[in-house]
């Protein structure tokens, strides 16, 4: 038997062979860009070179036939190159303006909607869910597909005040990041423990240490070493579930969706901000989650009507004040919106500022 092949530890590959020649030539030497139409960017280099980018939506989970279709579009219409954005959009680049229209047509014909530039709703960034994760409360690809169907026009058109980044997370670990709108699973009941399995499957001290509110303690149940949860303390976060699958947190009925608003990674104008809870208790209603879509559309509609140009969703809510956010969107304000986690005091109104 031959010795096993040891890997070539090549790490991050050289990008140059895969870079469109015009991008390679003008690397680090760009002058400005404009958006000639929805879904198209024009970048002009200091050399005077022009590159048109046609941006199109895709699903993140792609089969090889779709991938080959993308390769074919790149060959036939876009000089043989393509890049993907952080949010799984396709970007084809050409240096000849006359190639733009045929490229747009080819994308649309192949089922990749052209859009997602400028002040539009971008592709929802997503996670794994039932398709591949070992701890999901819901699916990711399906929820995103259903939502993008609903928000299709907002993806295609550039008529939002600023771009809208929506994220989704299928458990409370929240692989999805901060979002203008974040759609996340929120469990509402403590885990149900299968005491027969704990001793065999779980390293108990690790599980105890994982709980953010110290609600778990070792116990003996039915003569076997197990764990018990102080259900009054438990915040149903699900952190004990990954290290200890017998602590079943996912529940078809009680694992709900919560919606958060105003997250922002960039430091543009305002400093980065976390998203804030606005709605919860929405059912995990596969395969199309219509209740979630309704709330998201309501928020987007209000933002579109009321925010100023360039205002991200959180900046808008800050300007008009959260009381008005709830009033304008018609979403109920509850005691759960008042933060009682550590540092939560900083989110209270310690001033004489009230809008009437």
């Amino acid at each position: 038997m031959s010795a096993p092949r040891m890997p070539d530890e090549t790490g991050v590959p050289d990008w140059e062979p895969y870079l469109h020649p015009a991008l390679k030539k003008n690397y680090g030497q760009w002058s400005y860009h404009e958006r000639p139409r929805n879904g198209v960017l024009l970048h002009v280099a200091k050399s005077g070179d022009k590159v048109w980018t046609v941006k199109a939506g895709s699903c993140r989970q792609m089969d090889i036939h779709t991938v080959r279709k993308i390769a074919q579009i790149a060959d036939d219409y876009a000089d043989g190159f393509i890049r993907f954005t952080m949010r799984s959009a396709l970007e084809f680049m050409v240096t000849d303006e006359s190639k733009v229209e045929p490229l747009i047509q080819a994308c649309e014909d192949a089922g990749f909607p052209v859009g997602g530039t400028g002040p539009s709703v971008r592709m929802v960034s997503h996670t794994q869910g039932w398709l591949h994760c070992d701890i999901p409360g819901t699916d990711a690809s399906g929820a995103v597909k259903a939502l993008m169907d609903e928000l299709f026009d907002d993806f295609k058109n550039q008529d939002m005040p600023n771009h809208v980044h929506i994220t989704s997370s299928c458990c409370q670990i929240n692989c999805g990041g901060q979002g203008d709108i974040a759609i996340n699973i929120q469990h509402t009941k403590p885990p149900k423990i299968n005491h027969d399995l704990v001793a065999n499957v779980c390293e108990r001290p690790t599980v105890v240490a994982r709980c953010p509110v110290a609600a778990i303690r070792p116990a003996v149940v039915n003569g076997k070493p197990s764990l018990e949860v102080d259900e009054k303390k438990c915040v149903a976060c699900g952190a004990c579930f990954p290290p200890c699958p017998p602590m079943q947190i996912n529940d078809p009925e009680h694992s709900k969706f919560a919606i958060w608003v105003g997250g922002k990674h960039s430091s543009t104008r305002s400093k980065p901000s976390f998203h804030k809870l606005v709605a919860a208790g929405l059912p995990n209603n596969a395969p199309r989650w219509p209740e979630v879509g309704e709330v998201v559309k309501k928020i987007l509609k209000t933002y579109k009507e009321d925010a100023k140009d360039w205002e991200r969703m959180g900046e808008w809510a800050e300007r008009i004040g959260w009381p008005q956010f709830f009033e304008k969107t018609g979403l109920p304000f509850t005691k759960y919106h008042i933060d009682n986690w550590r540092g939560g005091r900083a989110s209270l109104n310690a001033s004489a500022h009230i809008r009437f």
Partner: protein
Amino acid sequence: MAKEMHATPLLDQLESGPWPSFVTGIKRLAQDNDMMVDLLGQLETSYRTRKGYWKGGTVGVVGYGGGVIPRFTELKDKNEKALYPSAAEFHTIRIQPTPGFHYTSDLLRKFSDVWEKHGSGLLCLHGQSGDLMLQGCTTAAVQPCFDEVNAMGFDMGGAGPALRTASSCVGHARCEHSCYDEYAAHRQMINAFLDDMHRPALPYKWKFKFSGCANDCSNATQRADEAVIGTWRDDMKVDQEKVKEYVSTKGRKYIIDNVITRCPTNALALNDDDTLDVDNKNCVRCMHCINVMTKALAPGDDKGVMILVGGKRTLKIGDTFGTVIVPFMKVDTEEGLDELEDLSGRMIDFFAENALEHERCGEMIDRIGLANYLEGIEVDIDPNQIDVPRTNPYVRMDGWDEEVAKWEERKA
């Protein structure tokens, strides 16, 4: 021809509507691929019961301790036989793509061919850390599949308590705002610490992200343990003729309402002759005015990066943003990048030695305090690291005179 399809009335509802459907893609694969037939069976079950049915395990390739995400089905009958046997093993292989996610059509076809031969044919382009993920591989096929991908010049990504795959904004390749060569920094930082990726032995994950400016298109501020973000030190570039053009085409009101009054530090003024004044000392390089008037305004010439540390998602203390530890650093030369590598090395080492198991860097800093952390990684304290000075008196200050002396020394 594959085995017969399972009925999927729920998933079928995800085939209608204008957005591209992953279900249609999976069904196409299932026409000649048993694994995808059974994957649809398991996924439909999840849609019906609203439960997930994968569990982890241990699968890998020779020479590496991570990079494969093992998945075994939990949907079994009384006799422990998988209900959907062809998808009983459904592992993911994480691969590091090029910085900026650039491909040739030829490269996409090569990945498709290898993946058709060894796996399910389902790819994820790309995960949120930045991996190309090949999803749906049997245990036996993981090694031969990786061998072929590796021979194409691509390496495994990170998983587990390890250095993770990084990502970069499009940056230098196609963005006029870019203040440093993101891809070069990305490649050098990851490749310098590759051992920490392939042989997971850190307390928990360590993520790098690279953004060319404060617009932070790679979401580095919150999503990276070490965020490298471009900025500049000298004056912003202003082309006054172009400013006048903006004013004449957009109108004074538009420029006042959308540029001047939106500067977070009131560093802009529009003059009576329609030229622009920039108070560069008070500009915080937020990028807003440059975004709006990209033809007229641009970052200065003395460009570099700032380093933020400690961004992470919810578990366990709640979300954190990265905080500034180094406000400016030149990385446009080999020496500059080496200095960044040295600093990153000190940060990763300190994390490896001082974080508790399953504790992210941001949580560790919360626990020990930023000042102690900075001392540990040999970075000077700097008022750019804070929003406001301390507001409570609960601190021992008997070292005051020595600390003042250090400040004077640093200033000298």
